[in-house]
């Protein structure tokens, strides 16, 4: 089960993920990113402070948008990942492919600089 909310701060579209993103819930994350894309958002910050767990299904969602976002010049930054969650990104080296920062403030700063 996950709970996804979004808000807009300035030009930044912030998605907050709460709960476990696994094979049963990853579709919701997929829909949330798809919605941002559809709304023509260009600066997307994913707040993972309450993301408790992620499996390959969730990683796959992020990976599936990398190309689209690059082509459309959409900035994606992830922030506030706990140690267990970032560990999963690191196993596959995804922490090198995605922009990941510690805090939401750093996320906002980075997304404006990109």
């Amino acid at each position, binding site marked *: *089960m996950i709970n996804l909310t979004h808000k807009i701060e300035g030009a930044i579209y912030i998605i907050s993920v709460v709960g*476990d993103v*696994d*094979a*049963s819930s*990853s579709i919701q994350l*997929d829909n949330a990113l798809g919605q941002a894309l559809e709304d023509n958002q260009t600066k997307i910050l994913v707040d993972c402070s309450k993301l408790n*767990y992620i*499996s*390959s*299904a969730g*990683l*796959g*969602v992020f*990976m*599936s948008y*990398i*190309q*689209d976002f690059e082509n459309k010049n959409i900035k994606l930054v992830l922030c506030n990942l706990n*140690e*267990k969650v970032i*560990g*999963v990104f690191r*196993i*596959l*080296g*995804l922490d090198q*492919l995605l922009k990941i920062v510690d805090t939401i403030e750093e996320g906002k700063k980075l997304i404006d600089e990109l």
Partner: protein
Amino acid sequence: MMNYSYKVPCQKEKLKDIRSFVSEALRKHGVPEVQIATMVLAVDEVCANIIIHTYKCDPDEYVEIIIKVDKKLNCVFEISDQGDKFDITQYQEPSMAEIIRNKRKGGIGLILVRKIMDDIELVQKDGHHVCRLTKKLGKES
């Protein structure tokens, strides 16, 4: 050697219960949290694969997990699969570039399992297919 077993219907919503079962069993043996997290992930990936791809989320089918932990904290996970055999040992990993290029949402779970576990094998046991994952923590007793 301690054994734990858990059997659930093939529903994606049960993955969370499977993760709780694995973490609770490993915690009883004092396995470090970092190791618990990765092993929970590996079991979740194999079970998700069986539930979704082998059984197409059929709640009349079951997936069973047996965990064996010895004194040196060597952990064996036996996940029984009675459906069509998917031979993980023959699986060709897609590259990261390929996954991104093709926008594949699947295919990376088994890469994670391989990176986390020391050994993965498919065995036949009592007429069932069993995916056996082994992680040797090798704690000095």
